Every structure is written in C-alpha cells, then in structure tokens.
C-alpha cells in the first residue's frame, strides 16, 4: 500500500468529492456558528440538522463558506428582488445552493455556498410563526400578559437586552434624561444568534422573580427581519405570556409584529420608543399626582369642611332635639297638669251633681211621702164617710125593720085573736044544741034536768024530759037496754 502525504490524501479526497458532486446541490439546514472573517469578509457557518423537537442536539453538521464575492452577488440579487433586511443569523433555517469542496490545507469538508433561497427561509419562518400563534391561542395564554396591570408609574424595570448594545444605550439614556429615577435591572442577553431564545427566557424567569419590579422590557436594536424569527419562538412567547409582570417589547420590527410583540403587554418598534413610553407614563403619573395632590388638598379640605359642617349640624340638631325634648316634656307636663285640674273640677262637679240629685231625691221623696199621707188621709176620710153612711143606712133599715116587725107582730096578734075568736065562735055554734036538734037529734034529761049520756042511773018509771028541735016531750022509762 502506498503511503500518501496528508496533502495528497486530501487532494485525492477533494477530487473524489468533486467528482461525486459535480453539479450544484441544494442543502437545507440551520445556520450555526455564523462568522464573518474579519480580513476577508467571507462568511462561514455550519449547517446543522437537528433532531426533531430538539433545540440543542443535532444529528449532522456540515461546514459552509459563503465567500464574499458570492455573498455580494446573492445580496445584490436579493436587493433586485426587493428583499431587504434578510440577514443570515444563527438558528435560521436556510436552503443553500452550493458545491461540495474540501479544504485541503485543513482537510476540512465544506460546502461553498453560491446563494441562499430567501423564499424558503421566509416561508419557514412564517410557518413557524403560525404554529406558535396557534399553540398560544389553543392554550389560551395569548392575551394573558395583556391582562396584567402595569403599575402607574412603572419605575422599576427589568431590562432584557445585550449590555452595551445600542438598544441598551438608547433605552437607558432616555430614562436617565427623564426627571424620574428609574431603577433598571439589566439582564444581559444575546439578542441575536442561537442563544437568543434561551437567554431571553432565562431573563424573563430571573427578572419576574426579582423583587420590586414593575415591568420587564425586552429590547434590541433594529436588524434584519429574518433575525426576528427568534421572537416568534414558542418558548419566548410562552415565557412572555406567562410572565407575572407586564412585558413590554421593543425588538425593532417595522412592518410585521413578532409573536412576542403580540403576546406582550405592550410593544414598540424601538428601545427608544419603549423608554419614551415609560417616561411619558411617569410624566403622566406625575401630572396626575400633581393634579391629585391638588385635588387631594381640595378634597381633604372639602371633606374636613363637610365633616365639620356635618358635626355642627349634628350638634345643632342635638341642641334642637334636646330642646324639642324638653319642650315636649314641658308640654306633656302642662297638659297633664291641666288634665289633672280639669279632671278634679269635673270630679267635683260630678260630686255636686250627685249631691244635687240626692237633694232633689230627698225633697221629692219627702213630698211624695207627704202627698201619699195626704191621699191616705183622704182615703181614710172617705172610709169614715162610708162607715157613717153604712151606720145610718143600717140604723134606718133597722128602724124600718122594727116598723115592719111591729105591723107583722100586730097583725099576727090580731089574726091570732081573730082565729081564736073564730074557733070559739065555731065551737059555740057547735055547742049550740039547736043545731043538732035541727037534724033530728034530741036531748034526754033526767029528773035533775041532766042530759042523759048512758042508761046507767036510769030506772024504770023514771020520768024523762026529751027536748026536741021544736018542743019537749015528757016520758016515763019502761025499760032500759045497756049496751
């Protein structure tokens, strides 16, 4: 086996490579470690292919050289296309036209770039940007930072920028020129190149946890539009959206907003604008303070005056009310006193009426008693009169009775006498023998002239005289027949 020198080896390899890639090729990858050679002004960088979803790990890498001539031609062609501000930067996804080369001196394999397709890069950036917006929106944090309140004024500022950059200087000098004492806490971060994302995210993390911060400002000087694509990065945007402090961006775009701008509390084109905004807020605040101070003095004056007026009103109301109280109480007392007076007078007059009624009752009763007695006497008198007349009528009737008695008695006596006389008369008539004799009876007398009633005592031969109604017969007894 032949032994080659290093240079021969490298030459053979270069020939083989050149043979293998005899035509211009297109390669896509991400720019990494971009350098412009100070003397030659050639541009060098690596193209890397990252593993999917990996920021730091790459799986392949190739060195690239963009010589000054080619670069200028490419830039001119861009300008001719009207594309400005397309700057190469680390992390930029590019599609390069190139040929393969090997630098024999160094034995280094590289590609020599003829030109870069701006359309590819811009399309890539646009696509990424849309993805980021979509993620932010779908996770609902797009407007989160806008919802925070920016303290008024915001004097304590967390600044994320690269120290000593024009952006930093512009920002700080404006703040200094203002009348206000801003307190700026700088977080020095690369604002371009592949570390931009990590450093900005770190900066947000550090500053939001620094005490007494009012807001975070992320700013950088103007640059090519292609360099802004860091600020479409999802990690930066998420960090901004979720930041506890309002984030104000000033990252130097002119036409399109970066997603970071869209996500932030507020955005401006330049650091100067951001600084001016903050100063104007402070002005505004101070004006307001002065105004408020005036108002405050006025208001406190008013409040104190009003309060004093209220107090004196209350005091006078107190006085009036207390007076009302006492005067009402006095009136109550007065009316009570007069009620008392009138009540007693009423009572007395009622009692008087009672007495008057009793007086009248006594008089009426006594009169009534007298009248009753008078009537009783009159009745008694009438009774007496009745008694008298009954006595008289009885006496008269007894007298009349006595007359009747008399006449009755006399009549009786006389009638009796008459009856007796009649009886005697009848008797005598009956006794008159002539009446018997007239009917054929006769009376036989004995010798002594005695009328015979029986045969006893008569003897034979006795001489008997028989008296007849007219004349007498004298006869002798021959026989007798006793019954």
């Amino acid at each position: 086996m032949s032994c080659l020198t290093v240079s021969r080896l490298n030459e053979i390899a270069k020939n083989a490579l050149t043979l293998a890639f005899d035509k211009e090729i297109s390669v896509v990858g991400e720019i990494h470690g971009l350098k412009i050679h100070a003397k030659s002004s050639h541009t060098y960088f690596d193209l890397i292919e990252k593993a999917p979803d990996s920021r730091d790990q790459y799986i392949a890498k190739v060195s690239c050289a963009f010589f000054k001539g080619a670069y200028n031609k490419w830039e001119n062609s861009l300008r001719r296309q009207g594309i400005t501000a397309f700057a190469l930067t680390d992390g930029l996804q590019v599609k390069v036209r190139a040929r393969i080369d090997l630098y024999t001196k160094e034995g280094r394999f590289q590609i020599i770039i003829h030109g870069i397709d701006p359309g590819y890069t811009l399309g890539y950036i646009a696509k990424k940007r849309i993805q980021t917006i979509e993620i932010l929106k779908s996770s609902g944090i797009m407007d989160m930072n806008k919802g925070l309140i920016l303290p008024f004024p915001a004097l304590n500022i967390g600044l994320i920028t690269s120290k000593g950059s024009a952006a930093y200087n512009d920002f700080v000098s404006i703040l200094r020129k203002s009348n206000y004492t801003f307190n700026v806490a700088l977080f020095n971060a690369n604002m371009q190149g592949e570390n931009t994302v990590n450093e900005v995210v770190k900066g947000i993390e550090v500053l939001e946890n620094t005490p007494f911060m009012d807001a975070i400002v992320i700013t950088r000087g103007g640059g090519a539009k292609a360099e802004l694509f860091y600020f479409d990065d999802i990690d930066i945007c998420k960090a901004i959206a979720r930041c506890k402090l309002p984030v104000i961006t000033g990252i130097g775009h002119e036409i399109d907003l970066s997603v970071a701008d869209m996500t932030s509390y507020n955005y401006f084109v330049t650091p100067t604008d951001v600084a001016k905004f903050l100063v104007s807020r402070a002005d505004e605040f101070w004006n307001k303070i002065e105004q408020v101070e005036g108002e405050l003095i006025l208001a406190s004056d008013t409040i104190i005056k009003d309060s004093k007026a209220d107090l004196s009103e209350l005091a006078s109301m107190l006085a009036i009310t207390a007076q009302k109280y006492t005067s009402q109480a006095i009136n109550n007392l007065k009316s009570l006193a007069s009620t008392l007076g009138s009540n007693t007078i009423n009572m007395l007059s009622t009692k008087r009426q009672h007495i008057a009624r009793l007086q009248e009752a006594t008089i009426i009763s006594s009169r009534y008693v007298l009248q009753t007695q008078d009537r009783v006497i009159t009745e008694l008198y009438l009774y007496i009169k009745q008694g008298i007349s009954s006595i008289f009528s009885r006496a008269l009737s007894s007298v009349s009775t006595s007359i009747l008695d008399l006449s009755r008695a006399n009549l009786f006596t006389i009638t009796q006498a008459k009856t007796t006389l009649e009886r005697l008369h009848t008797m005598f008539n009956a006794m008159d023998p002539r009446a018997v004799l007239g009917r054929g009876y006769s009376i036989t007398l004995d010798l002594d002239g005695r009328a015979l009633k029986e045969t006893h005592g008569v003897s034979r031969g006795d001489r008997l005289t028989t008296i007849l109604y007219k004349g007498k017969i004298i006869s002798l007894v021959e026989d007798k027949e006793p019954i």
Partner: protein
Amino acid sequence: MKKNQSYSSVFKQLETIAEKMNKGDIPIDELGDKVKKASHMIKFLRQRLKSVEMEITDILKDLESDQASQTREEERDDKI
C-alpha cells in the same frame, strides 16, 4: 055589754064559758043562753079587734108616711 069592758076580761069570760061548755058543765037548758051570750061576746071582741087593728093600721100608715116624707126630704136634700 059595757063598752069599756076590756077585751081580755071579756075574752076570759068567753073562755070560761067555752070551758064550761066543753066540760058539759052547762046544762043543756042553759046552753042556748050561754051560746047566745058567748056570741055577743064574740061580736064584741071582734069589734074590739077590728078597732085595734084599724088604730094600728093608722099608726103604721102614719109612720110610713112620716118615713116617706123624710126619705123624700132626704132625696130632696140629695138633689140639693
């Protein structure tokens, strides 16, 4: 008969006669006379009775008229 003979004495005689007659104490032969006498007595007594009756009647009439007049007077008084 004496006019001023009393009713009672005459009546007594009459009764005596009547008694005697009833007892049959009077002989038949006197009987007629006695009866005649008694009849006279009876007539006398009747006369007396009659006159007494008339006298009483008069008195009573007088009394009654007296009462009547008094009553009339009273009635007249009442009318007054």
